[in-house]
């Protein structure tokens, strides 16, 4: 017969648990709080690929060799003050800014740049464009601590663009000595960069806290001493946080913009941030019937009322898009003129006729995957709406809700040819656009194709070898013209992404460049 442990112990434990509620510091006015939907995977720019990882925290923490000018795709100096190209076009020399230090006090040297680029091209790298880096770069030399030379195998134009924000995070410079001393895992837990803000803490699933360094060449004396990234997946909650003044900037969905505008919260748009485009999953040998027939592809394009979708599903924060995979920023750069007649009209009658001509007037069955994507909370509603339009021309649509990873597997495995998927492709400059086309429209190598067309393949193959911008532009124009005229995909709308800000935030241009919200402008004391 044994007496049970003192009941007070149990009760005491419960009280302790209830009482030990952690007390968070009060947000001072010197803190900028940004509220994000997704949670970052970690802080290793070369190991992770999700956009949220970099939106959230990496940009203020790290530096790249070069940057984009805000609101444009012009490459401007950053960590590298200037750079020159060898006459043969095969060696780029970057001259590093002097006196830049990592947050742990180490100097930023050419060794760090080399280390970072090699890490980005290395085996564990998962950045989307590591492959390109591997094939392009012959060697990286460090003739002096403030000078790094990238030698390429072939003459190329793309090195500076490549290292900017055009693509991904390859260009971010990490501290070699620190990483080699503490190892990857420790770096992931406590990252060190050379950006205007340094890492303070991360509470996974809750927030990331950064603190400003005293004075930084990018922003001068910081306006905000701290930057906090809060992770809140539910929109209603993000908006409530904004209303309560707990956050300064938050991602919102397009449908709630009007409501917030009415309450006079400033809304900042990243205009044409992405193009929402749909495509047919290819079979092992390309397009399958009935989509093999150009008329069916055109019919499906004509059946969708893009203006109405832009107005209703995207609450007016979108514009009809004319060209499949058409990244609009590059159009200017490559000299592609988009004329009104390139826009698909909403013409269900003609769509029906086209289907009849193609011998599928009685309709056919079609699987459409429905999923949400980061930046596309309307995903499922959008898929339902488009399916509704197709139903109206007699296509029997089966909506298959999945999460994106499951869809991606279907897409890449090509197990369900003919079914429909979509993506909000981030807008890019000409270099990024080429990379996208190479990834999704160049059939020889990739499982991720959405276009399988010998003519397109031929033109893209030439772009890779070309060093003359004019010729590249002409080829790219050709690719887009071909894709449009063959209806090799269904462009739907360009998306503007709204960010709601607190009333006291002030002027801010969030730009439109992927992976960067230009917090520098906000934080800048300049």
């Amino acid at each position, binding site marked *: 017969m044994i007496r049970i442990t003192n009941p007070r112990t149990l009760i005491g434990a419960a009280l302790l*648990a209830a009482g030990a*509620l*952690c007390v968070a510091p009060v947000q001072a006015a010197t803190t900028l709080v940004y509220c994000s939907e997704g949670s970052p995977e970690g802080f290793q720019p070369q190991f992770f690929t999700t956009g949220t990882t970099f939106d959230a925290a990496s940009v203020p923490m790290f530096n790249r060799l070069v940057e984009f000018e805000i609101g444009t795709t012009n490459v401007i100096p950053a960590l590298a003050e200037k750079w020159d190209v060898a006459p043969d076009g095969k060696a780029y020399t970057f001259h590093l800014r002097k006196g830049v230090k990592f947050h742990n006090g180490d100097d930023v040297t050419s060794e760090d740049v080399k280390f970072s680029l090699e890490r980005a091209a290395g085996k564990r790298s998962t950045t989307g464009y590591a492959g390109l880096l591997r094939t392009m770069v012959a060697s990286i030399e460090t003739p002096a601590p403030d000078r790094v030379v990238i030698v390429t195998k072939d003459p190329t134009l793309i090195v500076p663009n490549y290292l900017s924000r055009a693509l991904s995070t390859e260009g971010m410079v990490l501290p070699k000595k620190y990483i080699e001393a503490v190892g990857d895992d420790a770096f992931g837990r406590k990252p060190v960069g050379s950006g205007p803000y340094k890492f303070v803490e991360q509470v996974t*699933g809750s927030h990331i806290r950064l603190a400003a360094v005293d004075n930084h060449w990018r922003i001068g004396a910081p306006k905000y001493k701290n930057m906090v990234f*809060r992770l809140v997946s539910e929109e209603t*909650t993000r908006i*409530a946080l904004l209303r309560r003044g707990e956050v300064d900037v938050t991602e919102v969905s397009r449908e709630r913009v009007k409501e917030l505008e009415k309450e006079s919260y400033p809304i900042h748009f990243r205009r044409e941030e992405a193009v929402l485009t749909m495509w047919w999953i290819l079979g092992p040998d390309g397009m399958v019937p009935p989509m093999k027939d150009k008329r069916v592809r055109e019919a499906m394009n004509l059946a969708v009322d893009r203006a109405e979708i832009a107005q209703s599903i995207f609450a007016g924060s979108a514009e009809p898009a004319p060209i499949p995979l058409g990244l609009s920023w590059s159009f200017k750069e490559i000299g592609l003129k988009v004329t009104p007649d390139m826009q698909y009209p909403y013409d269900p009658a003609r769509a029906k006729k086209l289907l009849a001509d193609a011998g599928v007037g009685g309709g056919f069955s079609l699987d459409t995957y429905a999923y949400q994507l980061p930046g596309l909370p309307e995903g499922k509603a959008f898929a339902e709406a488009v399916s509704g339009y197709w139903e109206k021309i007699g296509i029997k649509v089966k909506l298959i809700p999945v999460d994106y990873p499951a869809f991606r*597997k279907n897409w890449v495995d090509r197990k369900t040819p003919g079914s429909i998927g979509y993506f909000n492709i981030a807008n890019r400059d000409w270099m990024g656009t080429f990379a996208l086309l190479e*990834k999704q429209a160049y059939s020889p190598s990739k499982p991720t194709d959405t276009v399988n067309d010998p003519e397109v393949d031929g033109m893209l193959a030439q772009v890779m070898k070309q060093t003359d911008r004019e010729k590249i532009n002409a080829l790219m124009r050709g690719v887009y013209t071909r894709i449009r005229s063959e209806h090799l995909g269904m462009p739907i709308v360009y998306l503007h992404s709204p960010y709601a800000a607190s009333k006291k935030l002030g002027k801010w241009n969030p730009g439109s460049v992927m992976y960067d919200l230009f917090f520098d402008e906000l934080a800048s004391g300049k």
Partner: protein
Amino acid sequence: MIRFVVSRVLQSLVALAILSVVVFVLARATGDPLQLILPMSATPEEYAEARHYLGLDRPYVEQYLSFVGRAVTGDFGNSLRARRPVIELIQERLPNSLRLAAFAMGISLSIAFPLGILAAVKKGTGLDRTAQVIAVLGQSLPTFWVAIVLVEVVAGRLQWLPAGGNQGFTSYVLPGFTLGWFVVAGMMRLLRSGMLEVLDSEYVKLARVKGVVEHRVVWMHALKNALIPVVTFAGIYFSILVTTAIVVETVFAWPGLGRLAYEGISSRDFPVIQAVVLTTAAIVAVVNLSVDCLYAVIDPRIRHAR
């Protein structure tokens, strides 16, 4: 008593072992995590290499045994997504989950107690029926909807309480209430019928006959007896709290285990899924065990048996 505790511990361990197999299989059924880790352009060789690096190319039995072997020592491997030891992630999240669950338990008890006792004492009156409807309401509305309405109204419009995250004590109120209200009905039911039975018993009658004041009759003589069934079910409530928490954590941006599980599933992060399910189950087992002990504290008949 020792025998009793030991056999309960053994039973829990067996259940956990069964669960570990199930969760191991299920986690692998979710799909290939490499699809998400590697870039879309990855070659088959890169896949093979990553698979080997992550130990996913070993036979399943071997994977399972090493999983169990290490799990016993608290090593759940590295998260495939965050590339950090899973145990670290759990350690970060678990306290938040436990605190929220404890708080929610507190809230639901503090609603269920007065309601249950009131309903029993005023049995059959309008008060009784109102109390029951209030309790059952919590169970009749989808938790996420209650949560969203609370966030929108109480946090967003009235601005009384924080909307999300763990920003100190006040942050507990809304999620705690949402979660707590969901289980009030069950607890109140137990208390009410327990109280009714007890209030009707001979010993309560005797207490009254002895001239004991009514509030002492209710709160002292009757309540301790009526508590027994409530305590017995604390384990079940706790597990309901922990699972329902996924929804509440999502709405209130609460960095708890539920969100971790959700993120783990959406990124096919096996080690995380496995660890969360096992941790949850272990917690439920521990709670059940403590409940059995607490039960013995309350009811002398159990304490002295065996």
